[in-house]
């Protein structure tokens, strides 16, 4: 019964098609406009990895096993979060042409942009898999636990969508949210276990992996991708709770502030 309703809805509505169309165009705009094209999407995390590897493994000698892969998975998750939040603060301004002349639902604009970021993430993740399985000397190979990454990514998607909704609707009434968020996110970057040894991180900042929603996502992603372990379910529960609360808040913000976008921006 439910399936039939859903099926009918899919057939009669063009929503799914539209989301995909907008996501594809967004992706193309971002990567095919410059000379190096899609290569940028792949080069950027590699460059970051080289920098952090030199600093934390060679200069500071942290001695984390498989450090390049450790950085790789952490950075691509983090970059998705940054692109989907910092990158979308002005979304109601840049995508004004979509809602200024029609009664299109604004939520579709957000979801399609995040879908476009997800395509980028997918390419990066494929690179990670190739790197980890073929080039990493200390690799433990593939395992069934790897599939947990889907749940972890969904968590990240909801979290980013929520934050994106909140930030971009605040932008309507306070333009300098961009600067405020920049400071906040660089703080959060250093408070996430992206390049620190996990044990040091947990020792120095006890319980902070429960306070920072990105920390749990990165820790769990490493467990399932590199340690062949299931995720820490308690941590995952916390992170899903954070993401859901932020998404609900974001929806409230969109209804309250977002509806004024056409006249204020």
């Amino acid at each position: 019964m439910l399936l039939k309703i859903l099926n009918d809805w899919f057939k009669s509505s063009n929503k799914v098609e539209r989301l995909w169309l907008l996501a594809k165009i967004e992706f193309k705009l971002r990567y095919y406009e410059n000379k190096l094209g899609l290569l940028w999407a792949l080069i950027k995390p590699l460059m970051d990895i080289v920098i952090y590897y030199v600093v934390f493994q060679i200069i500071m000698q942290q001695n984390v096993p498989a450090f390049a892969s450790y950085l790789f998975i952490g950075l691509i998750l983090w970059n998705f979060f940054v692109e989907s939040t910092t990158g979308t603060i002005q979304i109601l301004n840049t995508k004004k042409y979509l809602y200024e002349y029609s009664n299109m639902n604004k939520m579709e604009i957000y979801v399609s942009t995040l879908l476009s970021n997800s395509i980028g993430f997918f390419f990066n993740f494929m690179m990670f898999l190739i790197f980890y399985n073929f080039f990493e000397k200390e690799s433990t190979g593939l395992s069934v636990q790897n599939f947990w990454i889907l749940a972890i990514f969904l968590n990240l998607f909801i979290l980013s969508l929520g934050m994106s909704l909140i930030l971009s609707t605040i932008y309507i009434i306070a333009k300098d949210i961009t600067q405020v968020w920049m400071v906040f996110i660089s703080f959060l970057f250093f408070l996430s276990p992206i390049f620190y040894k996990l044990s040091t991180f947990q020792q120095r900042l006890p319980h902070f992996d429960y306070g920072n929603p990105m920390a749990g996502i990165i820790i769990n992603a490493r467990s399932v991708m590199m340690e062949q372990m299931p995720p820490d379910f308690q941590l995952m529960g916390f992170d899903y709770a954070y993401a859901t609360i932020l998404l609900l808040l974001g929806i409230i913000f969109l209804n309250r502030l977002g509806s004024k976008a056409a006249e204020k921006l």
Partner: protein
Amino acid sequence: MKTETAIIAKDISKTFHISEDSHNTVKHRLFNLFNPPKRKDIPALKLTSLEIQRGECIGLIGRNGCGKTTLTKVLAGVYPTDTGYIKINGSTMLMNLGVGMSHELTARENIYVSGSVLGLKIKEVDKLFDEIVEFAEIRNFVDTKVKFFSSGMMARLAFSIAVKAGADIMFLDEIFSVGDMKFREKAVKIFESSWIQGKTVILVSHGMEVIKKYCNRSAFMKNGEIDFFGDTEKAIELYTADNQ
């Protein structure tokens, strides 16, 4: 045939709050916590109720600054209303000269995006694509970014998308001034032959002949209020008197 309502608006109104400083920032808000900026309220639309049936062609006339554009934007669901409620049955599209296109996208992409926003499936846009391009006379510029288009080309493209793809409820703001004489003739022809039937149209114009020709009901607006809503002849009379 059963008539259905396309738009029901009950007690809607819209006031714009314009503050003297245009910069809305956190810093500014914090520093001026006890010294709020002077605000000016502009009642662009005073309490109004109206009902529009599906398939009707409604004229909207009035002098500049009387609230025509605000009313169309509120009715199209682009602006939220301050009071009352609006029920819109179907997709809406507001059309004036530089309509809903991204300058960063090519004509092809814009056709697909607009078509999709107007509720068409990709396959349906595929079928309409050539018609739209031919009608807009931009065959050689299909894969050119719209930002390189001349304003005439842009307006023609927008018009063609609207004509061929069209939303359920169309708000047309002075559209008969698009393009050269040849294009205008073509536009009027298609407007008369196919478009006006079946679609709900709200026509905003200062050209009384156009209003008289197509609309059976019209609204005359004055100072943010609908002064009269009904017979077109009467509305035009009032408008002419107001212009004296």
